[in-house]
């Protein structure tokens, strides 16, 4: 059962609108990473509209939950979610994204209210998340740390250094969420370098393992609640969210070329039409 009532139909509406904006904002600067942003929409919305504690008037409130975006290229969806949550004006984002003189840097940047940690080189966020999670012990504060990882990203060895450390030190206020959209820059993750079997790997590293449909709000909410209920057991949690890269636009889905490429005008019109028709 869900702890709080959230209007899922409203979130679905937001999700559709954000997908359009992801495509528009990347199109306008002819750069950015639309594919892996489209796959994260429901996960980001669930964190900020269902699960985590934060105060937009005081982004550094010490009781807040911390979200680390380890796949730092997912700025379109991340910045849009923060705007929807009220950290800043969405118009500023749409005008400034990836442009000279703006805080809305190409990869997540702490100059943007709500961003906790600069990333952009894959494989660093989980270690940072561990350090932040450990700080709660010294501060005697009860906050949670969420780290958003890409699926290809866990090919980085440092992720497994961090995975070992987190379970060894019983860091149970840490939740890694893997955006398992199956695609990395040059093709299918499991054809380039298989990350499977994910369940066996994470469980053998001492983590709670939860696997869900990362586009289904109910499943995401339940997984996030299962994480917080597991606190006290001394185990970190990983949520593997099965998602679709480029979700919502037929020609983008499962197509690796849209990992780091914006749509051209023609593609954009077609994509927006598709998203408009989506129920």
């Amino acid at each position: 059962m869900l702890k709080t009532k959230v209007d899922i139909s409203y979130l679905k509406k937001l999700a559709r609108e954000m997908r359009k904006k992801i495509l528009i904002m990347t199109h306008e600067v002819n750069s950015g990473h639309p594919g892996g942003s489209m796959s994260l929409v429901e996960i980001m919305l669930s964190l900020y509209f269902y699960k985590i504690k934060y105060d937009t008037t005081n982004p550094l409130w010490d009781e807040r939950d911390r979200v680390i975006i380890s796949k730092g290229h997912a700025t379109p969806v991340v910045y849009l979610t923060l705007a929807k949550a009220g950290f800043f004006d969405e118009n500023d984002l749409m005008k400034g994204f990836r442009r000279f003189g703006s805080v809305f840097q190409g990869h997540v940047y702490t100059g943007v209210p709500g961003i906790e940690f600069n990333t952009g080189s894959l494989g660093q966020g989980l270690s940072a998340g561990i350090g932040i999670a450990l700080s709660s012990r010294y501060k005697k504060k009860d906050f949670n740390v969420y780290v958003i990882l890409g699926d290809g990203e866990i090919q980085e060895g440092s992720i497994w250094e961090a995975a070992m450390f987190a379970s060894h030190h019983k860091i149970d206020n840490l939740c890694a969420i893997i955006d398992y959209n199956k695609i990395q820059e040059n093709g299918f993750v499991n054809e380039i370098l298989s990350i499977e079997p994910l369940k066996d790997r994470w469980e053998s590293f001492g983590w709670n393992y939860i696997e869900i449909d990362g586009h289904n709000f109910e499943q995401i909410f339940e997984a996030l609640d299962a994480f917080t209920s597991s606190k006290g057991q001394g185990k970190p949690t990983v949520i593997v969210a099965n998602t679709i890269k480029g979700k919502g636009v037929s020609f983008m889905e499962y197509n690796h070329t849209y990992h780091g490429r914006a749509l051209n005008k023609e593609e954009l019109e077609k994509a927006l039409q598709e998203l408009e028709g989506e129920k």
Partner: protein
Amino acid sequence: MQPKPTRDGFGEELVSLGYENEKIIVFSADLEDSVRSEYFKFKFPERFYNVGIAEQNMVGIAAGLAKEGFITFVTSFAVFLTNRAYDFIRISVCYNNFNVKLCASHAGVTVGEDGATAQSLEDIAIMAVLPNMRVVCPVDYLEAKKITRFITNEYGPFYMRLSRAPYPIITSETDKFEFGKGKIFMEGEDLTIISYGITVSESLKAAEELKKDGISARVINMSTIKPFDEQLVLDSAEKTGAILVVEEHEITNGLGSMIARFLSTKKPVPMEFIAVNDVFGVSGKPYELLEHFGLDYKNIYNVSKKLLKRKKSNSSHKKNNQ
């Protein structure tokens, strides 16, 4: 006072600081015995982590804790800390500008018998190039204590280079460490020898030898390498007209390169450089290796003479052209 490794000064001072400041948290990638961060571990086990042999994760966790207001020290050998964790140092520490102190021992060829893989000769170059990073190298055990205290109380990323080999004690308890300032350890007029770490002692010995030939050398301890003391370098170029930089580091992109770049636009004077010349280290006894790589006082003496010849011929050229 008997010679002591600078790592000892670091390890001892960190314990004193641990009593004074609860925000200090110390990390090691399984080398706390060698780097002397184990002194802290023994006193404050709840604020110490041996992360295992995983330097990247160590630096990343330290950055995360620093973000939350803690002062984190990461300790290892210079080769492992700077090379293996480089990308984490670049992004998680420097780009974020978090309060992480990288303290690495076993720098330079004076590591000795372990040979090339353990002898860090690139660390100054790759640390100094990073925005927000400041680079320091204590000249002896006493200065190591003072620098450890300074970097603890000064916000932001620091790289401190420490030694395994005992260094002669050439400062006193009452000397002050001033960040960003070089110190004249011997005054002179004919040339200036600038160095950091163990080679400062060798430079002083060389200067004593030069005195016997009637040559007076100014010798500077440049324990702040980034930002180095530009004012003092400029003053030395103006007053002595010749600069020799001696460093236990690769010749490319060390302090010598930085000073040459600076002087080339402000006050070009004849310069010479003594450093490791684009080769890896080898096994041997520390002093044997200093001699092998020309970092000992005899070679500093010889190169000083060569530099003075260039200085003289330069000034006679100038006269002839007038």
